[in-house]
């Protein structure tokens, strides 16, 4: 079983995001990047499948700050091959461009199964999975929270709203958008990650052109605008309490 996992790094929301001078993008100088949570689950699912049925896991990621550490950690967790896509990724690319760029690389790997996170919080033009499947000419199923693989086919559990789950049989090769791995992403000791940094190699693949056509153009990026419905009540505890009682009485609640 040849499994390819496509991951990307997204802005880490532990830091406050600011908008750059153009007003259409994030200020990227101060951004801290983190593996997209769903991609982390896709990676875990890939490694779980490898452990269950043997095979090889290749992790593919576009080159952004910190990606080497993420790839080495993936190796420490059990990934066999690491590929970094070199190109103009640092300033952010849309999902169309990323899917096109990775499709050529993924195609060459002749995978039986391609896993990626079902979504990312910066997928402004749709998630990468279905676009990638289209470019590869493979079937796609998203919102997957459990996968088994057999000969030329896979059974995947797809989540629907309302707690419904469907089991689907999919012909391989296919692309699956992972919602959750069967086990939470595992912890690897730092000493093992450090070991992987010495032993694993990151293969680099040059992406000459990034074609972002098909996605929307961002007209304006802005923070959620405050509505004027909330009233701040000033004063000490007694005054605030008295004012609250007054408001509740006016509204007929008391």
């Amino acid at each position, binding site marked *: 079983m040849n499994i390819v996992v496509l991951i990307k790094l997204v802005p880490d929301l532990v830091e406050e995001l600011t908008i750059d001078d153009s007003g259409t993008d994030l200020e990227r100088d101060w951004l801290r990047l983190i593996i997209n949570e769903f991609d982390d689950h896709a990676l875990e699912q890939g490694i779980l499948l490898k452990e269950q049925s043997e095979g090889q896991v290749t992790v593919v990621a576009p080159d952004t700050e910190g990606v080497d550490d993420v790839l080495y950690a993936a190796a420490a967790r059990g990934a066999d091959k690491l590929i970094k896509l070199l190109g103009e990724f640092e300033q952010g690319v849309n999902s169309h461009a990323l899917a096109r760029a990775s499709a050529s690389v993924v195609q060459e790997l002749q995978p039986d199964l391609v896993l990626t996170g079902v979504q990312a919080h910066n997928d402004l033009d749709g998630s990468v999975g279905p676009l990638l499947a289209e470019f590869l000419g493979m079937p796609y199923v998203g919102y997957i929270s459990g996968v088994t693989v057999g000969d030329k086919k896979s059974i995947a559990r797809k989540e629907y709203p309302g707690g419904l789950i469907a089991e689907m049989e999919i012909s391989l090769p296919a692309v699956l958008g992972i919602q959750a791995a069967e086990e939470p992403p595992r912890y690897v*000791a*730092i*000493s093992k990650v450090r070991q992987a940094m010495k032993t694993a190699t990151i293969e680099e693949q040059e992406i000459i052109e990034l074609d972002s056509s098909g996605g929307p153009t961002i007209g304006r990026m802005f923070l959620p605008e405050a509505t004027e419905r909330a009233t701040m009540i000033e004063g000490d505890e007694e005054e605030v309490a008295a004012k609250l009682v007054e408001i509740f009485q006016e509204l007929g609640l008391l």
Partner: protein
Amino acid sequence: MTAFVSNTAPGNSSFSKTFYDSLLEVVDGEHLRTCLQCGTCSGVCPFGYLMEFPPGRMISYLRADIFDRVMDSESVWMCVSCYACTQVCPSKIPLTTGLMTRAKEELLLAGNIPKELQSALENSQRYGNPLGESPRKRANWAKGLETEVAIMGKVKRPVDILWFVGDYPSYHPRVQLASRALVKLLDVLDIDFGILGPEENSDADSQRLAGERGLFEMLAEKNGQALSKYQFNEIITTDPHAYNALRNEYPKLGISYPVRHYTQFLADRLDQLQPLLTQEIKAKVTFHDPCYLGRANGVYDEPRTLLEAIPGIKLVEMQHNRSTSLCCGGGGGGMWLDGFQWEKAHVRLSEWRVREAISVDADVLAVACPYESPRFEDAAKMVQGAGQLRVKDIAELLVDAMED
């Protein structure tokens, strides 16, 4: 102790032998050979009664070459690295730093750790603090204070005292109150001090004792690099765990500075401090010895000296005090295993401690470790009759005793 990565996974028949040999490499590790199997360690362990493998039994399985069975059990994650076993061992076996920590390291290397602990370790690695807060905001607690706290990277000048603030004192809203109190004390004592601010990382001592040696070394190196950039005469810490790391562990990594816990530092300046303590605090106060100040480092008197200097305070001792102090449950990774340990034990060590405090009619439970205010305040909400008990850091009590 050097980092030891075994080549044999738990479950392998030669695992016991490899593990045993690794324990001999720990400082005083050879004392293991003289274990009497007296069981005192297991008896004194606050969770020993429900561990499938308390320390004594771990050693017997090790000697019987069947240690892989211990590794199949989760019971070692009940260990809060409180040094109670080490303290009473008649053979002076380094049970906490050796046996228990090494066992956690092996479980962690095998990827077998409680999920709760995982996020604290991942946060520590990624953000330099187990709380998962932005490292850039590490000094935000000091904003808006009357005294401007010097951040070394900004002031670019030597200071007398480098204050290693720590994770919870920097980020936890309850513990920040104690940090601000300490600023006030340093200010009135006219101390020239600075903090590392965003350059400070977790001291990582608790992560080390939770088995993540590599993470400890990584964060210690970062702290070492930051400290080496600046000039100062001495480090003081808010956190006994940071004190323990800087005093006993960092020097093994070549990071060596004079260090004191803030209670030692203040007790040394009592002549200067005493005249400022003019406000009477009419209260019965009991002091909880933090494991890493007391048992691990032998500091028992200074916190009491400070408390006794406060007019009006009557200091009383709980049943477990000084070297027999009870752990708050936060050490050795316990801070990040509350759910796991509750599931196993259905008791909290912090509640046990709060019951002891009210059994001696204490009005105030005084603490000197940043894990404790939140732990004991939470516990007090759960213990009947503890509604009036106030949990106060010694720094907060000292400020309360000063005129505004």
